[in-house]
């Protein structure tokens, strides 16, 4: 069975990125140290190598950033939309020009395969800026009345799974609508946001329109609690989302929350099986399953369950786990030691509760944070692994007999961000999609994003929509 050709390593060169030993905060168009000199390190999750030290913004720093944003808001919101569009187009083009560099930087800092950062993340980042650049001078025609107004200063906190893409989802519509922003990237993945700050300078964006304050949870809390922040936008865990909701309850602040998910991927017996298998793999192993809309619960019709699982296992065996910078890598590193231990804890719970575990065999790199693609069978709704968001490359498999049962099981979750339906019958796909309580329902595909398409959750997956015209509404006083 020896393979006449094994793929030789094909690593993308990291020479294209230039990482400074230390970074400050980006406030009012310039980099500055944190007031109290706080620092933390960001590491490459694939090697545990320290990449850089970043400043930890305290309350005083957040205050400076919000003041800068407030000052800039006056002139930025007064600019004609076409002028704001000009800056956004410029940023979009600069992102395209620096696409390779940004992709490498993202993969180094996050641990995701270069194939994904290069082919998915960065092109989508540019696409979002292009999309909202197009809206900037058409706000009066967006369907929100003749004269929608910007809200003011947006305080934005984003996660580590799609660092630059989540920045784009938040910054692009905010700026298009005439708002200014203070953004806090995740503490484990700040590097592309800091590089983005430099791109803003290169684009000649007026000072204070975009401010980047790095740091961990405390910095985020300070930003969200700041009295002069008009609009809060957060993507991250449901626990933090609830804390944010409590913090701003009773204030005048607007809020959108994009939280966790536990998406069902429903495969009917009349599905195109080969593509369904590809879609299941894409749904749960894209970005190592560290995706809030990951298709982590496979619901497969009992009559095809055995055959589908055999195909799925065969397909997973072709996945390459390893160096994120290798162009042939399919599954990269887990973003942090903390996340890895959460995955391990939930997988152990799955085993303890009697579900049957299958993991991709093969040696994982000695250093860094790794978890092999894993499938649990014999899972029921009562299992913790079927209820809690694992946020890792772990798929649970359940079966169903009728469409009604599939929908019932799919909806029997605290979350409602996304879902997938696989069938060759259009009417059945629509019947199912109409009954699924999820913000996005993909049919015969999974994890596809487009700047024109709104994205957001039901139930504990949060509220508000990002993307498209709907995403614009969250940044407008309508």
């Amino acid at each position, binding site marked *: *069975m*020896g*393979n*006449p*050709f*094994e*793929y*030789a*390593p*094909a690593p993308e060169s990291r020479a294209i990125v230039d990482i400074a030993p230390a970074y400050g905060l980006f406030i009012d168009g310039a980099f500055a140290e944190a007031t109290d000199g706080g620092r933390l390190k960001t590491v490459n999750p694939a090697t545990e190598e320290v990449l850089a030290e970043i400043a930890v913004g305290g309350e005083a720093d957040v205050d400076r950033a919000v003041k800068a944003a407030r000052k800039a808001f006056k002139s930025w919101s007064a600019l004609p939309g076409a002028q704001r569009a000009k800056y956004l187009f410029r940023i979009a083009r600069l992102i395209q020009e620096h696409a390779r560099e940004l992709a490498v930087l993202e993969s180094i800092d996050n641990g995701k395969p270069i*194939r994904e950062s290069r*082919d998915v993340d960065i092109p989508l980042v540019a696409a979002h800026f292009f999309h909202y650049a197009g809206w900037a001078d058409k706000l009066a025609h967006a369907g929100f009345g003749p004269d929608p107004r910007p809200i003011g200063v947006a305080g934005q906190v984003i996660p580590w799974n799609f660092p630059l893409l989540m920045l784009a989802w938040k910054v692009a519509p905010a700026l298009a609508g005439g708002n200014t922003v203070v953004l806090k990237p995740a503490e484990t993945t700040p590097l592309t946001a800091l590089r983005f700050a430099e791109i803003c300078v290169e684009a000649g964006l007026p000072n204070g329109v975009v401010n980047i304050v790095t740091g961990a949870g405390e910095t985020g809390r300070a930003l969200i609690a700041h009295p002069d922040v008009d609009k809060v936008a957060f993507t991250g865990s449901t626990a933090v989302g609830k804390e944010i909701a409590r913090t701003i309850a009773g204030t005048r602040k607007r809020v959108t929350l994009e939280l966790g998910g536990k998406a069902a991927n429903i495969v009917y017996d*009349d*599905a*195109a*099986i*080969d*593509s*369904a298998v*590809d*879609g299941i793999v894409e749904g749960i192993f894209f970005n190592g399953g560290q995706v809030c809309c990951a298709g982590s619960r496979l619901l497969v019709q009992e009559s*095809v369950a055995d*055959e*589908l699982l*055999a*195909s799925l296992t065969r397909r997973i065996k*072709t996945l390459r786990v390893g160096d994120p910078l290798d*162009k*042939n890598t399919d599954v990269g590193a887990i973003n942090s030691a903390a996340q890895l231990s959460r995955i391990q804890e939930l997988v152990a719970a799955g085993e303890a509760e009697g579900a049957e575990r299958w993991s991709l065999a093969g040696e994982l790199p000695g250093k860094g944070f790794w978890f092999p693609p894993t499938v649990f069978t014999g899972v029921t709704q009562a299992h913790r692994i079927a209820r809690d968001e694992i946020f890792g490359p772990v798929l649970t498999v359940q079966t169903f007999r009728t469409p009604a049962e599939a929908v019932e099981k799919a909806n029997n979750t605290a979350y409602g961000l996304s879902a997938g339906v696989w069938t*060759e019958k259009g009417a059945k796909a629509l019947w199912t999609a109409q009954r699924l309580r999820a913000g996005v329902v993909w049919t*015969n*595909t999974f994890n596809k994003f487009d700047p024109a398409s709104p994205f957001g959750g039901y139930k504990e997956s949060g509220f508000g929509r990002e993307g498209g015209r709907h995403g614009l509404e969250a940044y407008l006083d309508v």
Partner: protein
Amino acid sequence: MPSAILADPAEVTSSEAALRRFLHGLPGVDRVGTEARAAMLATRSIKTDAKVAAIDLAIRMIDLTTLEGADTPGKVRSLCAKALHPDPGAPDTPRPAAICVYGDLVAEAKAALGDSGVHVAAVATAFPSGRASLDVKLADVAYAVAAGADEIDMVIDRGAFLAGRYRDVFDEIVAVKAACARDEAAGGGSAHLKVILETGELSTYDNVRRASWLAMLAGADFIKTSTGKVAVNATLPVTLVMLQAVRDFREATGRQVGVKPAGGIRTTKDAMKYLVLVNETVGSDWLDPDWFRLGASSLLNDLLMQRQKLATGRYSGPDYVTVD
């Protein structure tokens, strides 16, 4: 998946209705998903040692083809010489699997190739249109087999297939397969049968999957994409669907069938994409000239140039490989 739907091959081919029921009961092919998968696999990066191995493998898989109306015995002889010595400057260069010619040139090719191990494949059955009476088609096959063809590349009757007359297509392949038998005087055995689906004319991936199963049920040793004579020939997604079909067919019946994309595969880069497709869809069992072929005429020279570049570190150019 297929084991459940193909309990008894004899039963599903027992009548027109049973055959139709079976072929239309195969799992559908999602166009978007299939094309996305093929496009993703096309981004695999093949470098250094893997590339050296892959180039030699691709050379061994080539059916070096000339199917022009203007073909002459002389042209076929030089093509055979090329197969025997692909790169005169590098004697370690492997030989392609076969020479593929029209039936009337089989004897010429056989004589030129001798017992070198390079096979002679002949296109038959009123290639490329397939529009002739069954008697004519079978005579075409018998003629090529008698002339010594090791492999027969037949075309299916696309008109019958598109009209839903699956049984006619099936019967014709069965008859051609029978005509591939060599008589005892010629050493017995049977020429290998490659069935050309002409996927460009079948137009949907569902049709490609059905035609693949139909050909395999009828006894094809290989299924082949195209004649190279229509607007759309081999593509990666079509080949992906055919690879899935042979994989599922083997799982259902235990019989392994080969795959041959043909037409339009010109560069080393293209060839690498096909090998990756094989590697990740059906695995190493098919990474062998016995089970995967590339129907091509100009691909060999590009592979040879890439081979020279890997060996010397320099790209020498088209004058350093032979034109025919």
